[in-house]
């Protein structure tokens, strides 16, 4: 059974594009971003719209390969392809883009993208043990603030920033409550629907409406939990490179084969939601603290990811882990070996891209994992 409220989330991304166009025509500024490292509270505190940018579809990759190497991660190629072909309405409407140095490929791609849009590229301290990393992150957030003022002509006050931090914390808490409903067995919401809700969050034009729909959805899911017979299917945690709407093939394969995608640890899942921003501190310092601790493979060492994954495996009664590595994503690819050794659950790594050419191979890996779990 599927919750009826999902119809709202089915059309959320497409309808938001229309709403953002209308707002833009009324004079509102729009700032696009790509990554869970982007302190969106800062963008919103300026009064600009923060909006996620398209990055997870195969379609624009051929165009991107005119400028970018073919053996590059599909996420980078797709982001750039969307930018140069005007096929992403969000990129089209964006007055400026906030990006970040999560990997060498993205960093260099942003140099090309800077010819198309004004950009601020935040430098993430790649070492998780660098003693000055908080100061460094804070300086980068201040630099972004200056960029927003200079580029969009918008000021950010401390009060406004605190207000946005509070709103985002509330949203994170609510979404974690939604995800926590999947502690039930069977899970009341599929992995692909959960992705749609969480992914849709960065494209929404109206926070209040989005939040009220999430609450409606949660009520419906409670009913589903109460009225569903217990049926089993291996409970799977998905982790690794981001999985966005449009490239759910691994999640779909898991579900088609009878598995339950309980949640994603990935940045398209709970990675950015598990920690809140401290509301009692200086807001810039608090933002720096939260964002620098995101357990992404771009930081080294990234032991927080292993701890978080193990915690989720236990809390959500996970039977097996599927680690998705996008082709040429070196950090997640290398880290997969460490993760496998660090976690206490059957594990398989799937290296893939956005094409449909390897669906059968993916199914083989997943059904083998299920059979291993069944024993």
């Amino acid at each position, binding site marked *: 059974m599927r919750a009826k409220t999902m119809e709202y989330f089915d059309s959320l991304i497409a309808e938001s594009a229309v709403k953002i166009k209308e707002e833009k025509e009324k004079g509102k500024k729009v700032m696009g971003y790509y990554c869970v490292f982007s302190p969106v509270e800062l963008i919103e505190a300026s009064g600009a719209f923060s909006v996620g940018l398209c990055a997870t579809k195969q379609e624009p990759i051929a165009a991107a390969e005119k400028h970018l190497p073919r053996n590059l991660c599909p996420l980078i190629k797709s982001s750039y392809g969307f930018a140069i072909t005007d096929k992403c309405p969000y990129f089209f409407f964006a007055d400026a883009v906030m990006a970040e140095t999560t990997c060498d490929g993205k960093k260099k791609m942003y140099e090309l993208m800077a010819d198309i849009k004004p950009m601020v590229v935040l430098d993430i301290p790649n070492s998780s043990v660098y003693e000055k990393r908080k100061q460094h992150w804070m300086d980068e957030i201040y630099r972004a603030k200056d960029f927003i003022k200079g580029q969009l002509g918008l000021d950010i006050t401390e009060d406004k920033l605190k207000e946005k931090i509070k709103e985002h914390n509330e949203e994170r808490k609510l979404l974690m409550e939604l995800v926590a409903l999947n502690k039930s067995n069977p899970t009341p919401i599929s992995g692909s629907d959960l992705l749609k809700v969480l992914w849709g969050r960065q494209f929404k034009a109206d926070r209040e409406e989005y939040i009220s729909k999430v609450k409606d959805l949660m009520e419906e899911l409670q009913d589903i939990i109460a009225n569903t017979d217990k049926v089993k299917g291996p409970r799977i945690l998905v982790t690794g490179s981001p999985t966005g709407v449009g490239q759910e093939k691994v999640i779909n394969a898991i579900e088609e084969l009878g598995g339950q995608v309980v949640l994603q640890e990935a940045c398209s899942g709970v990675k950015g939601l598990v920690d809140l921003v401290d509301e009692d501190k200086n807001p810039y310092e608090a933002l720096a603290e939260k964002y620098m601790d995101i357990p992404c493979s771009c930081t080294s060492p990234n032991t927080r990811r292993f701890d978080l994954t193990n915690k989720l495996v236990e809390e959500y009664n996970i039977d097996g882990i599927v680690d998705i590595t996008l082709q040429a994503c070196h950090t997640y690819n290398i880290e997969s070996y460490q993760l496998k050794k660090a976690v206490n659950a059957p594990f398989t*790594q799937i290296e893939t891209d956005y094409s449909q050419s390897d669906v059968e*191979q993916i199914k*083989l890996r997943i*059904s*083998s994992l299920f059979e*291993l779990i069944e024993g």
Partner: protein
Amino acid sequence: MYTVGIDVGSAAIKIVAFDGNDYKYTIEPTGWSPKSKGAEVYSRFLSDNKISSGHIKKVVATGYGGRRLDFIDEYKSEITCHGRGCHVLDPSIKGVIDIGGQDSKAMLLNGSGKVLDFTLNDKCAAGTGRFLQVTVNALGLDMDQIDALANNSKPLEIDNMCAVFAETEVLNLIVQGAKQGDILAGLLKSIALRIGSLAGKVDIEGEVAFCGGVAQSKVLTQMVEQYCNLKINKLENPQITGALGAAVIGF
């Protein structure tokens, strides 16, 4: 009573009928239509061996095309099936390496033939049966000539990650006047090294089974032993282990 295991691979269809003790089998090329060829080979196999449908308890399929057959009772992955099939043929083995048409695999087994861990090649054909076929074709040879030519040859360095580039590498070596046998030996060595790294990923060591059509190559088998620190226990028929495993699982 029999259970039947049917492994529809990208290159060959393997069928095994198991009676709890002994087995009969057949191997035929898959051709263009795995589904219709699977049905055709199956009915011919039954009539050749005088097995009526009333004597079949269960049909278990595996392999890429196996899922699409409409006369099966159950589908199991090749990983599980090869593991079990190899264990039946040799209960002493600790691991299995399999070079299939599209995938190369390594599996770590427990004492009763169950898979404890597995790994497959990444999104790339290098190290697969298909890789060998493409490169052997580039040399103008057939698969059944590889051992005769590669035996006692000096393997040239062929280390491309990509099957298509490896083909180009082979063509370059031909232009440079390299010996066919040395090129072939180089290709086999590159496959052996890749299978060795797969086995290392799941901590396989000691006595292993080597299956898949390519495992029939003695030179490749020797190279896997030589370069990967593995001891290969020769199976009586390494190509049918998936189908045998499927049949045994169904029994």
